[in-house]
């Protein structure tokens, strides 16, 4: 079982040092847990993160049957890092869920990736167990 309070505490540990929000969501964009922004904003982030990740997944899935394996997007998509004028964003796949972090511009992409890697590996096993028990 996932404990919502414990999950929120884990996300809160990551939400510091320029990280504005950390959100755990399902692949179809439903919010599971969040830290940082208000619930309304977290829902928007969840929807956007899901959409961005799905856009890449579509690239992978569309030509799967006809195109050779060495095309761009063959294999698993692990992480997406976005660097924009007013902030940065990282989205990573963790088991069957997604984790998204939004940061200010002063956070370096390497730090964002390192935090995301740490969070992903920490949540990987518990979320995998939950997804397995659901199947």
């Amino acid at each position, binding site marked *: 079982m996932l404990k919502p309070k414990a999950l929120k505490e884990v996300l809160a540990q990551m939400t510091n040092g320029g990280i504005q929000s950390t959100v755990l969501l399902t692949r179809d964009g439903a919010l599971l847990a969040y830290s940082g922004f208000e619930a309304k904003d977290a829902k*928007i*982030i969840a929807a*956007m993160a899901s*959409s*961005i990740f799905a*856009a*890449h997944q*579509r*690239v992978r899935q*569309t*030509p799967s049957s006809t*195109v*050779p394996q*060495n*095309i*761009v*997007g*063959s*294999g*698993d*998509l*692990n*992480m*997406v*890092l*976005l*660097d*924009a*004028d*007013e*902030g*940065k*964003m990282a989205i990573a796949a963790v088991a069957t869920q997604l984790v998204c972090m*939004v940061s200010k511009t002063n956070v370096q*992409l*390497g730090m964002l990736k390192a935090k995301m890697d740490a969070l992903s590996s920490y949540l990987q096993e518990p979320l995998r167990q939950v997804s397995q028990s659901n199947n």
Partner: protein
Amino acid sequence: MTFPQLFSHIDGIEAILIRDKDGVPVLKLPTNEAVDQLDLQTLIPSAHILQDQSSRMNLKQLKTVVTYWSARQIITYNVPPLVIIVAADTNVNTGALLNLYKDLQSIVSETLTQRA
């Protein structure tokens, strides 16, 4: 400096696709075949979606996007009016690739000034 020179000192780059704002390929490096084989063109719709989503999230203008796949990493540079997509091996230094953004900006602005 030219586009091929800019990337020449980084080992492990598999292919580069430069396209204009309408998605029309402008340049394919190192060869047309290398880019076509990787099917880099399929990334174009997602580059548009990313820009759209970025604007909606109040992140404003998107500069770079890095996607890590199990087999390779894809870096997309948004340098209006061009979009530059680089496919590289997972071992390639991502920081070195990201640092090229400013050089790309200056090359693109020089090229556009010359054309004008």
